[in-house]
């Protein structure tokens, strides 16, 4: 057993959460060499797999049918053997069967809804929730660095859209800020009020803007047409989440978006960052200064061959994403997504996987919180602008 495995095992015996301790050490773990990170990931994922194998009867049955048990996981090459849960199962009427933890231990439900309207619900117990909170804040601190400032949230508040993953995540930023405001109300968005707020915060707070790309794009287009430009601050961040594809199928060009956003707001392109995550997991992969989306070093992205999903694609080649998140105890956080990605590395000083998102696989529902929000706003705008007949 490696040094790190020994330390994690000993810590666990002493009552120290091994996953929590790695999350709390995100900065230093990111700077470990990739093979060392893999040792840590292997131990965490194997332990988590063992937990679900021993405590989730349905999952164990699936494992036995596939003839895999914890003893078969000896190296990172073996992680591909761990059975995954199809992400669509979180929408199933019998989704309660996914649970490893009993309902009496659940503390929270989070949802994501695509354009089909059927929500995907993920349920979490106390420890998973705590790990999730720490994981997200660890990545925010590592990748964005701020602990202050004022943020424009281009999203509805929780009163408007309760239990929505995107809203929950945006809300979490406020814990790192001095001030924040939501600017999507009743599915409407007024870009002038955003510019007014940014002006009020000038010389008061470092100003940030956070929201889905389609709303940031609208704001940028509006701001570009104004006579008096708004120049944001040296440490400002413009942070997007929710994907680059509209419910109409239109795709926002990422490079052009970065260029235009930076130009309109008078900042550097490396201040424009994107995030990728799934409501069903407990992490965010976040852009560094080089615009490489870093996967947290305790999470493993397994890119699967499109024709043979039980095998991984060749290194660097695109394939279907399977996520292995060892922080989840409420249900096995080993998720087969409907996303096509490829992974690579980055030269920014952080080691490990970076993910390049391509698109949803054919036949998958086009959807997530942001797309659903966009569709809802678009439907509302259509009702407002249609002339009555008669």
């Amino acid at each position: 057993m490696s040094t790190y495995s020994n330390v994690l095992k000993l810590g666990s015996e002493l009552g120290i959460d091994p996953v929590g301790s790695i999350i709390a050490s995100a900065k230093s773990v990111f700077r470990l060499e990739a093979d060392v990170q893999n040792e840590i990931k292997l131990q965490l994922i194997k332990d988590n797999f063992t937990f679900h194998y021993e405590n989730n009867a349905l999952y164990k049955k699936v494992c036995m049918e596939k003839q895999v048990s914890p003893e078969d996981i000896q190296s990172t090459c073996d992680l591909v053997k761990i059975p995954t849960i199809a992400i669509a199962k979180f929408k199933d009427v019998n989704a309660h069967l996914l649970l490893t933890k009993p309902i009496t231990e659940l503390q929270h439900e989070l949802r994501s809804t695509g354009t089909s309207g059927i929500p995907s619900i993920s349920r979490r117990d106390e420890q998973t929730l705590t790990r999730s909170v720490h994981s997200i804040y660890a990545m925010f601190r590592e990748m964005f660095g701020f602990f202050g400032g004022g943020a424009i949230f281009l999203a509805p508040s929780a009163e408007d859209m309760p239990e929505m993953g995107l809203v929950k995540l945006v809300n979490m930023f406020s814990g790192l800020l001095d001030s924040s405001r939501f600017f999507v109300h009743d599915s409407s968005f007024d870009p002038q009020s955003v510019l007014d707020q940014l002006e009020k915060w000038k010389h008061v707070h470092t100003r940030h803007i956070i929201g889905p790309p389609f709303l940031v794009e609208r704001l940028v287009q509006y701001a570009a047409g104004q006579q008096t430009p708004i120049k944001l601050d040296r440490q400002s961040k413009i942070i997007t989440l929710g994907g680059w594809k509209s419910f109409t199928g239109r795709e926002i060009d990422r490079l052009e978006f970065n260029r235009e956003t930076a130009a309109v707001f008078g900042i550097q392109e490396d201040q424009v960052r994107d995030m990728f995550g799934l409501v069903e997991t407990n992490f965010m992969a976040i852009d560094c200064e080089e615009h490489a989306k870093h996967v947290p070093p305790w999470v493993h992205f397994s890119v699967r061959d499109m024709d043979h999903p039980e095998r991984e694609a060749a290194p660097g080649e695109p394939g279907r994403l399977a996520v292995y998140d060892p922080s989840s105890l409420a249900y096995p956080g080993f998720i087969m997504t409907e996303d096509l990605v490829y992974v690579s590395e980055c030269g920014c000083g952080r080691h490990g996987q970076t993910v390049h998102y391509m698109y949803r696989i054919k036949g998958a529902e086009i959807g997530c919180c942001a797309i659903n929000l966009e569709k809802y706003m678009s439907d509302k705008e259509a009702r407002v602008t249609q002339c009555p007949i008669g």
Partner: protein
Amino acid sequence: MYNAIISEHFMSPRNIGELEMPDERIKIGNPICGDTIHVGIELKEDLIFDIKYKAYGCAASIATASIFSEYVKGKTLQQIRDTPLADKETMLGELEPNQMHCYEILLELFHSMCLVKAV
């Protein structure tokens, strides 16, 4: 987070499924939070002979569908219409603030059932 009634009905939901040839269909949907319930009913004159549903959403909304289906199955439409409000108010047990929308869902289910006509 979940009271005993909700817990029991979420972990062991009654009447989940789909009727092949329902006499009536009810669809309840909340576009904001996405809770959706599709109900199929089989009637024998004015009696709810069978009921099946598919519910998508939070645990409390799934339990609500189960509780409602268990209550109405085997009752006549008139008995359902005559259900006192006080009974409806206690059917789901004590709810957390963020679960109160499920009481609205329950009322909507009752309201929709009251519009159903005997065969």
